[in-house]
């Protein structure tokens, strides 16, 4: 609206000034209105979804990205119309406000709401069946939930997490001494770009089973048969229950190993070379250097990686859902949550499971906040 501001600078008559003001107000109403109409029709078009797929995608992208940019621009412009001191006071909220509003609406409020739902029976608060903490009592006593807790704690937190951390550390240390560091790291890192659903398909193919006697097309069973064993449906192998969970754990270690490797690799590069040289001169063996110097030096990274992987394994869902659907004793908290909330439509019980998951991450949240509190920057 540069021509309007130019007008301001000139000497105008009273009529002129009134005219400009009216024009300004009119524009202030008109432009948001036009923007709103455009956005609204874009929305209707997208919701109907009966045009060609590529067109919908294109409109969706332009509408979504352009719409947000447009909204910021309009807000900023509207604020510019206000008197100086008001616009200066309001401007930070234009910048920070949308983010805070979305956070409140998409994370903070739903968490409170979920807790509220968890106090009601299967049809939620609408049915008015207040049950207090009964859902929580059920969460901790029901057989499938206890199995889920066992799997999450023993297999996912107890085995998958340390395996991921140790594997990452091992590769980082090895790669650090190799000439082929970059290539090796790229390969190990690659699964991070693959979806859990994709990884599940990939590993299902490794675990694929054919009847005994027929040629095995799954690599694992082919090896087992070649060594004289019997082919098995590994993830559904209930004879070894609960150890069939390990076949799911392997998938997540495969996916997350690259993450842990990357962080450790960067941390190892941060160890001063003189320190290592000095230790070698003093006659320390490589193993001593690893345990006495490297490990203490990268302790902060070990904690970061462990908590990140821990949170991740606590919420593991896709892999289990696609591989077994939580059957054969492989259910976890997140699959139970999904089953109760969306398959069984037991709103109260599902909400209670979600809140338990939330409570489980609170220690990490407190740790993060404490770390943040120590930062001087703010």
């Amino acid at each position, binding site marked *: 609206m540069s021509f309007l501001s130019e007008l301001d600078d000139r000497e105008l008559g009273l009529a002129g000034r009134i005219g400009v003001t009216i024009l300004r107000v009119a524009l202030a109403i008109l432009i948001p209105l036009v923007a709103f109409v455009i956005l609204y029709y874009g929305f209707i078009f997208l919701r109907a979804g009966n045009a060609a797929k590529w067109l919908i*995608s294109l409109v969706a992208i332009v509408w979504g990205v352009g719409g947000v940019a447009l909204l910021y621009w309009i807000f900023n412009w509207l604020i510019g119309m206000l008197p100086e001191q008001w616009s200066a006071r309001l401007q930070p909220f234009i910048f920070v406000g949308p983010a805070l509003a979305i956070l409140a609406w998409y994370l903070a409020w739903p968490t409170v709401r979920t807790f509220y739902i968890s106090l009601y029976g299967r049809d939620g608060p609408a049915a008015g069946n207040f049950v207090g903490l009964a859902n929580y009592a059920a969460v901790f006593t029901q057989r499938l939930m206890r199995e889920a807790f066992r799997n999450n704690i023993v297999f996912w937190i107890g085995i998958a997490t340390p395996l991921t951390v140790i594997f990452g550390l091992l590769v980082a240390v090895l790669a650090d001494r190799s000439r082929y560091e970059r290539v090796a790291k790229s*390969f190990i890192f*690659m699964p991070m770009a693959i979806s859990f659903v994709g990884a599940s398909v990939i590993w299902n193919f490794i675990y694929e089973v054919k009847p005994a006697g027929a040629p095995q097309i799954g690599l694992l069973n082919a090896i087992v048969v070649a060594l004289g064993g019997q082919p098995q449906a590994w993830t559904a192998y209930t004879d070894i229950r609960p150890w069939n969970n390990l076949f799911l754990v392997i998938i997540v270690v495969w996916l997350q190993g690259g993450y842990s490797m990357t962080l450790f690799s960067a941390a190892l590069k941060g160890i001063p070379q003189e320190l290592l040289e000095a230790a070698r001169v003093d006659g320390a063996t490589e193993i001593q250097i690893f345990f006495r110097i490297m490990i203490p030096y990268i302790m902060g990274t070990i904690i970061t990686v462990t908590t990140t992987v821990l949170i991740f394994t606590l919420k593991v869902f896709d892999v289990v859902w696609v591989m077994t659907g939580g059957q054969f004793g492989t259910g976890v908290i997140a699959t139970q949550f999904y089953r109760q909330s969306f398959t069984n439509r037991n709103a109260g019980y599902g909400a209670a499971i979600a809140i338990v998951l939330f409570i489980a991450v609170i220690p990490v949240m407190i740790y993060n906040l404490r770390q943040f509190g120590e930062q001087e920057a703010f």
Partner: protein
Amino acid sequence: MKRLQRLRGPILVNGILALLVIIWMVPIVGILVSSFRDRSAVQQTGWWTVFPHRTWVLAEEIAPRETGAIVDEENRVVEVAGVRATFDELREGIETPDGKRVQWVGNWRIGRVEVQEKKWEVSSDFSLKNYQQVLGGKDFEYQNPDGSVEIIPGDNFWGALFNSLAVTVPATVIPILIAAFAAYGFAWMKFPGRRPAFVVVVALLVVPLQVALVPLLQFYNRIDLNGTFLAIWLAHTGFGLPLATYLLFNYISTLPRETLESAFIDGASHFTVFTRLILPLSVPALASFAIFQFLWVWNDYLVALVFLGGNPDFQVVTMRLANIAGSRGQDWHLLTAGAFVTMFLPLVVFFSLQRYFVRGLLAGSVKG
């Protein structure tokens, strides 16, 4: 001796490293190879048979009844190609001292005997047929070895790819834009409640998104937004914002103060400084988070399942793949090709922008 020791180190290190890399890559190679193999080949032989390997190849075929090879019809004893054995033994296959194998194929009445030799073999029958079917296939005709024709339905990944793009691009750009504004506000503006507001952002970093799903779904149902792109963009925006704001704040708050101050002295507004100065300067941080969010949204299954699950027209690639895995788990020709279709774009993004991705990981990667 000294030199030997110095040599042993790298060999051992590189050896273990190579072994780990191979183990890590084998699953991916397996489905990549299989995705180019014919449907029946994928079903019947392991994908590793495409590599040169020694296998039994038919050398001679004998009709046992015509050649009088059957010695004892009652006890089913056969003498053929220099081997005397029972029918059951022959069905398993008997290896002769000169490196051949004699095997009875088929049943006792109308079977035949094969003499096989071990030969090097490579199967190299690769095609893009699986990809054609999984991308835009309706029904595909298959000629079985016995001449009969089988009709196998394909799948429509093409549409799902467009859906994934339509979900992912805005769900990546929108949170970046909103978070960049917020990060600038937190870093360079003074306003009441600044610190508590940022504490909330940090606290929300690890909130599991499961706690938000049901209330949001109910809300979407109420305003008739469920199953739309807008619904899922906003959901991903909400779930990605804490990390985005946190990462971008860490970056933007460390930009040199003098640069900004001189711009303000020149009379630039916050909005101008932000769009003309801060955004271009923050490209590395924006790219880091963009890759993060892109991979996260593209690979997401749960959020799509909840918010787009009711609308089959809007299924994204992860949902389609999971659907095939669930309902047609034996159709490996579709599953392998489909898995690769879903992986292709993230792998391209990943390898071309790996540097930024690593930077983003190092800057903090706790996400709900």
